[in-house]
């Protein structure tokens, strides 16, 4: 596994909309009107219904987890929800190694839309297997 500074993780992409949001709502009990109803989304100042921040967080875990495989574990992960995930967007979770200290590796992680606009930027720390 490549842990050199600057290494980019294989991206994790999903087309987003009710097909993924409703499945997430079903497991997280998150049937909140702003994620279900375009009118409620517009009333909240957005173009329509939008995706859950927690699902962006899940995709950030997925991109790091899929890269790590059996070689380590996630110690911490944080992100801000800067832009909402609108219906029809292709969301890609990405990561880049920014620091390596023995078995401790820090990553810059983020989700972005199909135009490269960041939705949820953050950081992740992982601990590699000894």
């Amino acid at each position, binding site marked *: 596994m490549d842990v050199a500074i600057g290494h980019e993780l294989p991206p994790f992409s999903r087309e987003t909309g009710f097909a*993924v949001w409703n499945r997430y709502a079903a497991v997280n*009990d998150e049937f909140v009107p702003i994620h279900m109803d375009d009118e409620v989304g517009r009333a909240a100042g957005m173009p329509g219904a939008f995706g859950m921040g927690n699902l962006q967080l899940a995709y950030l875990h997925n991109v790091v987890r899929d890269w790590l495989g*059996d070689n380590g574990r996630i*110690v911490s992960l*944080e992100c801000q929800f800067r832009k909402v995930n609108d219906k029809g967007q292709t969301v890609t979770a990405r990561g880049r190694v920014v620091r390596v200290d023995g078995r401790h590796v820090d990553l810059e992680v983020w989700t972005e839309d199909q135009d490269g606009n960041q939705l949820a930027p953050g950081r992740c720390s992982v601990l590699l297997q000894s």
Partner: protein
Amino acid sequence: MASTLISEDMRNEVGRELARMVSYPVSASDIRKWALAVYYPEQPPERFWDEQAAADSQWGTIVAPEDFNPFAWLTAVPRGVRGQDGVRDPDRTEHALGIAGPGLKFQLNGGVSVAYGAPIRPGDVITSVERLAGYTEREGRLGLMLFTVYESTWTNQRDEFVKRTRLTLIRY
């Protein structure tokens, strides 16, 4: 417009325990369904749904995805279906504390920061203790916005640290 959204009553509640929950025992099916949802429409990694693949992994058994939530829908403590109506009240935190809230109309998840300890395995019973960690405010695109930080600490039935989440709720 109010010059501050943070009342004296609200400031006095910072640090207060807001909620204590205990999950039902986590099942392998709960973990499978979570993994299916967060990887949909592609297949989740086999170690989340195949006992042999999990046994061959670094974990030795099935473990939940880090972001798994064992408190959705129904909790053992408080007993029963979690009420959903209150979740839509933006002032639910203050109302639960018996004080007036800022009365803002909308709420958004601003961000999260999570630190992990022991993984969650089938059979685990998770306890969550949530505290009100703080209030801040600032002027934003949609007016004066209130940021509330909630800190939840999860432990398992062996009293091992599972995770600590700091969530920032934005109200505007």
